[in-house]
C-alpha cells in the first residue's frame, strides 16, 4: 500500500517538475528572466513535499537539480550582460516559499563567487547561514547537498584553474566545514526522529537513510580536493573539526562511515603524521561501531603506502607507527569483550600485513604481533569455529608468503605458540602449508636445532594428537599424501658438514619414530637413504678421524639397524628387507665386513620368518642374490655361508620354474668380474647343472600332462643355454662346447615333441650364436666355433 502511494506521489511530483522545467526552459530561451524565475520556483516547489520516502525524495531532487543546471548557465549569461548579484537576489525574493527561494539563492550565489561585486567569502558565508532556515532534516539535507554540489567547481581545488591566496583557501575551507557540520547534524536527526512511525516503515527508512549518509561524506571528498589543505592545516583545523563532529553526533552509522571517509579521502602521509589523533578518536566512538573495519582500512592504506613509496618508510619509524597501532588494537580488543575470535584475529592479521610491508626487516615486530595474538587467544582458548581458524591460517601464512623462507619463520618464537590454538585439522593444514613453502622455495634447513624447531611446527602430521589416533576419520589417500609430503621434506634437511648432518639425521629419527606403525613405512625410507648418502660422503672424505662419536659410518649404520628393525615390527617386512640390503651395500663400500654381514643376517632372517608370499619370496630372493653378487668385503668363509644359504632358499621356492631360475642366478655368485679371486668355474657349472635337473623335473611333469606348458619348460632350457653362453664368453674353463651342445640337442628334441613350436627365444639365441661365430675378433668366434651347430635348422 505504502509503496504504491509512494510511486504515485513521485510520479505526480516528477510530472510537475518536468512541466515546469519545460516552461522554464522556454523562458530561458527567450531571455525572459522573470518567467524563468517564476517557473523554476514552481518547479522547486515540488521539493517541499513531505510525502516521499528518502529514496523517492532523492530521485525527485536529482530531477530538479538537473534542470537547474540550465538556469545556472542562464544566470551566468545574465552576469555577463551586466546584471548584478543584488539585482538577481532582489528578483528571487519574490518567490513565495522559502525552500525554492533558497535553492535559487544558492544557484545565484555560486555564480557570483568569482565576480568582483561581492567577495567570495561573504557569499559563501551567507549561503551556508541562509540554509539554516530549513530545519526539516530531509529537505535541509538535500538543500545543503545542492549547495555543496553547485559550489564545488567554484572553489579553489587542486587541479582547477582557480587560484587564490591563503585567505581564499581558508574561506573555502571554512565554508565546506560548516556545511559539513550542519549536514551531519541534520542527518543524525533524521535517524532519531518520529517515534510515531510504524515499526516496519521506520526500518525501511533507516535502510534508505544509510545510503544518504554519503551525501554528508561528499563534503569530506570536497575537502580532500581543496587547495591549501596542507598537513598543518589538516592537522590543526580540518581533522579536529571533523572528528569533533564525528564523536559528538554519537551515531554509530555516521561514525563508521565518516571515519572510513576520512581514511580514504585524505593522503596517507597525513594519516601517518596524525596517527595519534586518529587512533585517539577510536575509543571515543560508540561501542557498536565496527572498529576493526576502521582500523583495518587504515592499516591497509598505510601498508599500500609503504609498499608503493620507499622514501616514506623512515617516516613510519619516526612516528613509531607500529607501536601506536599495536597499542590501539590492544585497547580495542580489551574494551570489546564480546569480540569474536575471528574478528580479533583479523585485526592482528591486518597489523601483521602492515608490519610485513613496512618493517620487513624487524623480525622482533613481527614476533610482537604474533605474541599479542597469542595473549588474545589465551583468553578464548582453543579455537573451534571455522571462520576463526581460516583467519589464523591466513595470519600464519602471511609471513610465510612474505619471506618465502621457513628458516626465518623458525626464528619467530611466538609462531609455534599461535599454532597451539588451532584445532587438529587446521594444525595439519598449516603444517602442510609450511612444508609446501619449503618444497616450492627449495629452502634448506641446515642445522639440527632448526630441524627440531621445524618438527615442532609440523608435529600435527608427525604424530597422533594427544594420544588419539586418527583412524577412520581420515581418508587413506589423504593420509598417504600427507606422509609423503613429510617424506619429501626430509631431502631438504641437509648440511654439507658431515658432523652437523649426522646430528640432523639423529634428530629426524627421533621425531619420526614417534609416528606410530601407520606412518613409519612412509617416513623411515627417506631417512635411511639420506643417512646412506651421508655415509657415502663420509667415506669419500679425508681419512682423518672424525671429532664426534656420532659422525662415523659405523655409528650411523648402527642407528640404521635399529631404525629399520622398527619397520619389521610394523609389518613392513618386505620394505625392511630391501632397506637392510641397501645398508649392506653401504657397509660394503665402507669396508665394514662385520656390519655388512649383520645386515645380511637380518635380511635373511626376515626372509625366513616374515616373507611367506611366493611372489614376494621370488623378488626378495632376486634382490638378495643381486646384492650379494656385488659384495666384495666378505672373506671366503662369510661369503660361502651367505651364498650357500641363498642357494638353499632358491631350491626351496614353491614353484619349480622359480626354483630353476633362482638356482641358475646363484651361479653368478661364484663369478665376479673384477679380476679378484672370485671366479669359481666349477661351482658355476654345478649351479647350472643343478638348475637343469630342476628343469628336467618340470619337463617331465609337462610331458605327463600332455602339452600343458611344454613350451614353458623348453624356455627354461633356453634360458640355461643362454647362461652357459654367458659364462662361455666370460672365459669359464669349465664351460665347454660339449656342455652347450648337449643342452642344445636336448632343446631340439623337446621342441620337436611340443606342438606349439620353438618360440622366438630359441630363434634369437641361435641367431646370436651364429652372429658370434662370424665375429672378426678371433677370441669370441673361436669359442663359438667349438659348438657344432650343423644339425640345427
Amino acid at each position: 500500500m505504502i509503496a504504491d502511494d509512494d510511486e504515485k506521489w513521485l510520479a505526480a511530483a516528477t510530472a510537475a517538475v518536468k512541466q515546469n522545467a519545460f516552461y522554464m526552459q522556454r523562458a530561458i530561451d527567450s531571455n525572459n528572466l522573470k518567467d524563468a524565475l517564476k517557473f523554476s520556483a514552481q518547479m522547486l516547489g515540488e521539493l517541499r513535499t513531505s510525502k516521499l520516502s528518502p529514496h523517492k525524495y532523492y530521485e525527485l531532487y536529482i530531477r530538479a537539480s538537473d534542470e537547474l543546471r540550465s538556469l545556472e548557465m542562464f544566470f551566468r549569461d545574465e552576469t555577463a550582460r551586466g546584471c548584478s548579484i543584488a539585482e538577481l537576489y532582489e528578483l528571487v525574493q519574490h518567490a513565495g516559499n522559502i525552500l525554492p527561494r533558497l535553492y535559487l539563492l544558492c544557484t545565484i550565489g555560486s555564480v557570483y563567487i568569482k565576480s568582483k561585486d561581492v567577495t567570495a567569502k561573504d557569499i559563501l558565508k551567507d549561503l551556508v547561514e541562509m540554509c539554516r532556515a530549513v530545519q526539516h532534516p530531509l529537505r535541509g539535507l538535500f538543500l545543503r547537498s545542492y549547495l555543496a554540489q553547485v559550489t564545488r567547481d567554484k572553489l579553489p581545488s587542486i587541479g582547477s584553474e582557480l587560484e587564490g591566496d591563503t585567505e581564499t583557501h581558508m574561506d573555502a575551507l571554512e565554508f565546506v566545514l560548516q556545511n559539513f557540520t550542519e549536514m551531519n547534524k541534520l542527518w543524525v536527526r533524521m535517524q532519531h526522529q518520529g517515534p510515531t512511525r510504524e515499526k516496519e516503515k521506520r526500518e525501511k527508512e533507516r535502510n534508505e537513510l544509510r545510503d544518504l549518509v554519503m551525501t554528508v561524506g561528499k563534503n569530506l571528498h570536497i575537502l580532500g580536493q581543496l587547495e591549501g589543505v596542507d598537513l598543518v592545516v589538516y592537522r590543526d583545523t580540518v581533522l579536529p573539526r571533523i572528528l569533533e563532529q564525528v564523536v559528538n553526533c554519537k551515531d554509530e552509522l555516521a561514525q563508521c562511515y565518516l571515519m572510513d571517509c576520512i581514511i580514504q579521502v585524505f593522503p596517507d602521509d597525513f594519516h601517518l603524521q596524525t596517527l595519534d589523533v586518529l587512533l585517539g578518536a577510536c575509543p571515543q566512538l560508540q561501542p557498536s561501531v565496527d572498529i576493526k573495519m576502521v582500523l583495518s582500512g587504515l592499516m591497509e592504506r598505510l601498508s599500500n603506502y609503504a609498499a608503493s613509496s620507499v622514501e616514506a618508510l623512515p617516516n613510519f619509524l619516526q612516528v613509531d607507527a607500529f607501536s601506536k597501532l599495536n597499542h590501539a588494537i590492544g585497547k580495542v580488543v580489551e574494551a570489546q569483550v564480546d569480540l569474536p575470535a575471528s574478528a580479533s584475529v583479523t585485526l592482528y592479521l591486518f597489523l601483521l600485513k602492515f608490519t610485513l610491508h613496512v618493517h620487513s626487516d624487524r623480525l622482533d615486530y613481527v614476533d610482537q604481533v604474533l605474541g599479542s595474538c597469542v595473549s588474545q587467544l589465551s583468553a578464548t582458548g582453543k579455537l573451534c569455529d571455522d571462520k576463526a581458524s581460516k583467519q589464523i591460517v591466513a595470519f600464519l601464512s602471511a609471513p610465510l608468503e612474505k619471506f618465502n623462507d621457513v628458516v626465518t619463520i623458525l626464528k619467530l618464537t611466538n609462531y609455534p605458540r599461535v599454532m597451539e590454538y588451532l584445532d587438529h585439522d587446521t594444525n595439519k593444514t598449516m603444517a602442510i602449508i609450511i612444508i609446501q613453502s619449503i618444497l616450492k622455495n627449495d629452502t634448506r634447513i641446515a642445522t639440527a636445532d632448526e630441524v627440531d624447531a621445524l618438527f615442532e611446527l609440523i608435529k600435527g602430521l608427525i604424530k597422533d594428537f594427544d594420544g588419539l589416533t586418527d583412524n577412520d576419520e581420515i581418508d587413506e589417500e589423504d593420509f598417504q599424501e600427507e606422509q609423503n609430503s613429510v617424506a619429501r621434506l626430509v631431502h631438504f634437511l641437509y648440511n654439507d658438514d658431515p658432523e652437523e648432518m649426522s646430528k640432523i639425521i639423529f634428530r629426524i629419527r627421533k621425531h619420526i619414530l614417534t609416528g606410530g606403525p601407520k606412518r613409519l613405512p612412509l617416513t623411515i625410507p627417506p631417512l635411511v637413504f639420506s643417512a646412506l648418502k651421508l655415509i657415502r660422503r663420509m667415506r669419500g672424505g679425508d681419512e682423518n678421524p672424525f671429532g664426534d662419536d656420532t659422525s662415523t659410518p659405523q655409528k650411523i649404520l648402527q642407528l640404521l639397524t635399529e631404525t629399520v628393525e622398527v619397520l619389521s615390527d610394523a609389518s613392513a617386512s618386505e620394505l625392511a628387507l630391501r632397506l637392510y640390503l641397501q645398508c649392506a651395500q653401504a657397509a660394503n663400500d665402507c669396508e665394514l665386513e662385520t656390519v655388512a654381514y649383520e645386515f645380511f643376517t637380518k635380511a635373511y632372517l626376515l626372509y625366513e620368518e616374515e616373507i611367506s608370499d611366493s611372489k614376494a619370496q621370488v623378488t626378495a630372493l632376486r634382490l638378495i642374490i643381486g646384492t650379494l653378487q656385488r659384495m666384495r668385503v666378505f672373506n671366503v668363509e662369510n661369503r660361502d655361508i651367505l651364498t650357500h644359504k641363498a642357494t638353499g632358499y632358491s631350491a626351496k621356492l614353491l614353484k619349480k620354474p622359480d626354483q630353476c631360475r633362482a638356482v641358475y642366478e646363484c651361479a653368478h655368485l661364484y663369478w665376479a668380474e673384477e679380476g679378484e679371486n672370485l671366479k669359481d668355474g666349477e661351482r658355476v657349472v654345478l649351479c647350472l647343472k643343478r638348475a637343469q635337473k630342476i628343469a628336467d623335473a618340470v619337463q617331465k611333469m609337462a610331458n605327463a600332462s600332455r602339452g600343458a606348458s611344454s613350451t614353458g619348460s623348453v624356455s627354461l632350457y633356453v634360458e640355461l643355454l643362454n647362461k652357459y653362453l654367458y659364462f662361455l664368453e666370460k672365459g669359464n674353463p669349465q664351460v665347454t662346447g660339449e656342455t652347450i651342445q648337449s643342452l642344445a640337442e636336448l632343446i631340439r628334441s623337446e621342441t620337436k615333441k611340443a606342438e606349439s613350436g620353438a618360440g622366438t627365444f630359441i630363434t634369437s639365441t641361435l641367431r646370436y650364436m651364429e652372429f658370434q661365430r662370424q665375429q672378426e675378433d678371433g677370441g669370441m668366434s673361436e669359442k663359438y666355433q667349438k659348438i657344432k651347430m650343423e644339425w640345427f635348422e
Partner: protein
Amino acid sequence: MVLVLALGDLHVPHRAADLPPKFKSMLVPGKIQHIICTGNLCIKEIHDYLKTICPDLHIVRGEFDEDARYPDTKTLTIGQFKLGLCHGHQVIPWGDLDSLAMLQRQLDVDILVTGHTHQFTAYKHEGGVVINPGSATGACSSINQDVNPSFVLMDIDGLRVVVYVYELIDGEVKVDKIDFKKASTSTSAP
C-alpha cells in the same frame, strides 16, 4: 615421427623430493605420444603426474614401487620397432650388458629399456639397442654414486630411431643424441 619418453628410477619420495624444475618445464603435455617407465616411481602421485604428460603410459615394477600391480616386463610395438621394458633388478649381475642381452633375446625386441643402475647408457649390439634412461630425479644408487638427473626421448621414424638423452649437469640441461637404424622389418640379424 613418434616421440617416446623413457624415464624411471625417480624414487619419490624415498630418495628425491621431485623431478628437477628444469625437467618439469620441458615435459609439456601433448607433445609426447608414449611414455615408457622403468619403474621405482614410487608413489601414485608420480603416476598421476606422468599420466598428465601423456595418457599412453607403460610402467614396469621396480623393487620399491608401492603399486604391486605393475608387471615385471612389458613389450610393445611402436612403428617398426619392438620395445621391451623391465626395471632391471631382476637381471643379474645388475647392469651387465650380456645378461641384459639375454633378456632382450628372451623378449625378442629391438630396443630394450631398463633401469636400476641410475646410469644413462645406450649400447648397440647384436640384437639391437639396450637403453638405460638413468634416474629422472638424480636419486642416489648403491651401484652408481655420481648420479645426474637424466631421461631419454626417442624419436621413432620408420626404420630409424634417434635417441636423445637429457642430462642435468651443474644446473644446466645438456643434450646428446645417438642414431640407430634397423636393417629391415624382419627379426633376422642386421
